[in-house]
């Protein structure tokens, strides 16, 4: 009841004006050149899926954008008015490595991010409401007082998504957020993420191996293998001859597992075109 107002306040249309640009982006660790000459232009309101074989440098690219590892080239962000500034980046890791025995509740974790007030002293009512509003946004408000170690994989990823959305990010990075989660959990997560780009003013970069789900939900697919091999709408990428001859086997094998999804893509793609 309390958080309806909060949700409405957060609810706004994406402007489609702000953008993130990667220019001549490269990462070298030690003597190994992992990424080179990556050029990307990401608009807000877009879900960009980053796909590619193992070891292609997808996770490395996200970590470089986050600033965890150093990179060459330029990373610039322009806000809606066209002024460059430092973007607020939200991040959902592939799998949160944490101690399952640790007595940290979902409320503890989120309010530690929201306010400087030490969570071991308890939670103010205001913070509690803000946290449950955030959790409601990812269909996880019932998890408020659960211990992190007691959550299922899908529940944990939704909590992490709620965490990444606070403060409102300009850029949301999702690193294989649902690998190892059952189909139902996966679809719920993708559904949430795909709604986010409509509700908030943000761009989303999603690393994934689920070709079928990605082609269904993504606006754009970037095929990465040490550099950008191909970039475009799902249809453009899959109709590209050279891409299909090199990476085709992987795509066909993956989509073959869920045969009904690609059919939906084609009809959906028709509407978009």
């Amino acid at each position: 009841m309390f958080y309806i107002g909060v949700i409405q306040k957060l609810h706004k249309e994406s402007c489609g004006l702000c953008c993130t640009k990667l220019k001549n982006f490269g990462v070298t660790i030690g003597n190994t050149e992992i990424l080179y000459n990556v050029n990307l232009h990401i608009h807000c309101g877009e879900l960009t899926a980053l796909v590619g074989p193992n070891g292609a440098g997808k996770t490395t690219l996200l970590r470089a954008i986050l600033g965890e590892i150093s990179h060459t080239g330029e990373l610039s962000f322009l806000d809606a008015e066209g002024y460059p500034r430092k973007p607020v980046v939200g991040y959902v890791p592939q799998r949160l490595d944490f101690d399952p025995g640790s007595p940290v509740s979902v409320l503890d974790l989120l309010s530690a991010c929201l306010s400087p007030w030490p969570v071991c002293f308890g939670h103010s009512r205001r913070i509690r409401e803000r946290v449950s509003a955030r959790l409601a946004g990812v269909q996880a408000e019932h998890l408020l007082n659960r211990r992190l170690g007691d959550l299922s994989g899908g529940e944990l990823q939704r909590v992490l998504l709620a965490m990444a959305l606070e403060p409102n990010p300009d850029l949301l990075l999702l690193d294989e957020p649902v690998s190892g989660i059952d189909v139902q959990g996966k679809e719920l997560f993708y559904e949430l993420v795909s709604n986010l780009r409509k509700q908030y003013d943000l761009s989303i970069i999603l690393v994934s191996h689920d070709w079928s789900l990605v082609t269904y939900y993504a606006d754009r697919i970037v095929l990465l293998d040490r550099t950008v091999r191909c970039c475009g709408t799902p249809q453009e990428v899959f109709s590209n001859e050279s891409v299909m001859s090199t990476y085709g086997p992987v795509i066909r094998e993956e989509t073959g597992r869920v045969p009904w999804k690609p059919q939906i893509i084609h009809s959906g793609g028709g509407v978009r075109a």
Partner: protein
Amino acid sequence: MEIWYAFVKHFLPFAWAQHTFMKNALLAVILVSPVFAVMGTMVVNNKMAFFSDTIGHSALTGIAIGVLLGFQDSLLIMVIFSVLLAIVISALKTLTSTSTDTIIGAVSATMVALGIVILSRGGGFNKFSRFLVGDLLSITPKEVLLLAFTLVGVIFLWVGMFNKFLLASVNPSLALSRGIPVRLVDTLFCITTAVIVTISIQWVGILIINSFLILPAAAARNISRNMRQYHVISILITLASGITGLLVSYYWSTATGATIVLFTALFYLGTLLAKPRFA
């Protein structure tokens, strides 16, 4: 101190409370318990039990260096030494790919050996054995004041930094993505642990100080579901076993530190048995 003495005289009219050394020790226990309980929760969360153990053992070398430099009571030297050691260990942790327990194990053994070699030179090790067992009953009012300052320091640190410590302990790269300087936070925590362990070592004793830090938190962890419960239970266990241990050691004339640790161990055992109900 006068207020405290008056308070004890008024509210605790027991035989044991007549002695000034017991009054001092009781106040020391009440001050040091929250410090250890609170630090312990994070030490356990960060899986740093072995680290704090090393800091405790390395106090021997700290004492030895103090003796070499000509100080008899060398708390300052010990603190400086342990802070340096904490910085070295946390740097080694990030710089090398060797597993942390190997590094810490190596450092620990080296420091103990070095300390014993220096202190036993000329056969005078016995006079330092009080550091091994610790003597809480010998605490002076000035030293109690030092503990009070430590408590205030820890409270300030917790108010300012706890959320950062927590996020860094849940997952470092998640914390980093939220703009928390994880390495700095980690080093700060290592240094604080080192300072607190070293300050308290002459009263609790090198051999058991780590148990006093780890056991209450480990016990609280068994039965708590969030951070507030974790802290409150840990503080209660430390206070309860601290005061009981002090009294029992008075009547049995045993070493105070060790008696207190035995009571925390009892709490740990109890919560371990109760764990299935809370899990």
